[in-house]
C-alpha cells in the first residue's frame, strides 16, 4: 500500500470517526461506526493478517446488531 492509498482509506476512517461524534440521531451514529470499520479493514488486510480480517468482519456486525436491540424507534413521533 503506497501513500496515496493509505491516505484515501485513512480519510474514510476519519470521516466515520468524526461524524460519529457530530451526528445526533442514534441510527446515524451506528451508520458512522460502520463507515469507520470500512476504513480500517484495508489496513488489516494490507499487513497480511487475513484470518484476523475474517474474524473481525464477522464479529463487529454482531456487536452492532446487539446494540440495535435497545435502539428501537421511539413511540413519541407516532
Amino acid at each position, binding site marked *: 500500500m503506497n*501513500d496515496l492509498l493509505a491516505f484515501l482509506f485513512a480519510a474514510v*476512517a476519519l470521516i466515520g470517526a*468524526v461524524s*460519529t461524534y457530530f451526528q445526533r440521531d442514534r441510527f446515524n451514529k451506528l451508520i458512522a461506526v460502520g463507515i469507520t470499520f470500512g476504513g480500517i479493514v484495508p*489496513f488489516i488486510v494490507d499487513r497480511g493478517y487475513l484470518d484476523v480480517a475474517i474474524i473481525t468482519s464477522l464479529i463487529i456486525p454482531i456487536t452492532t446488531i446487539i446494540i440495535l436491540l435497545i435502539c428501537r424507534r421511539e413511540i413519541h413521533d407516532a
Partner: protein
Amino acid sequence: MTPEFILGCIILIVGVIAVGFPRPKTYLSRLISLEIPGFGLLLIMLAYDEMLALVTFIGVTAISTFVLVRAIERKEAAQ
C-alpha cells in the same frame, strides 16, 4: 511511525473525546461512541504486530458490549 500507528492515535483521541463528552447525553450514545476507541486501539495493536492480542481484544469487546446492553436495558426498564 507507520500509517497504522498515526491513524490509530488520531482515532483513539477522537473516540476518547466522543465517549467523555457525548453529544446527546444518554447511555446509548455513550455506548455507541465506545466502539471508536476500540477501533483506534485495534490499529495500534496492528502496528506492533500483536495478532493474538488483537483477536482477544475484539472478542472481549463484543462480550462486554452485550453485558453493557443488558445493564442499560435493565436501567431503562426501572425508570
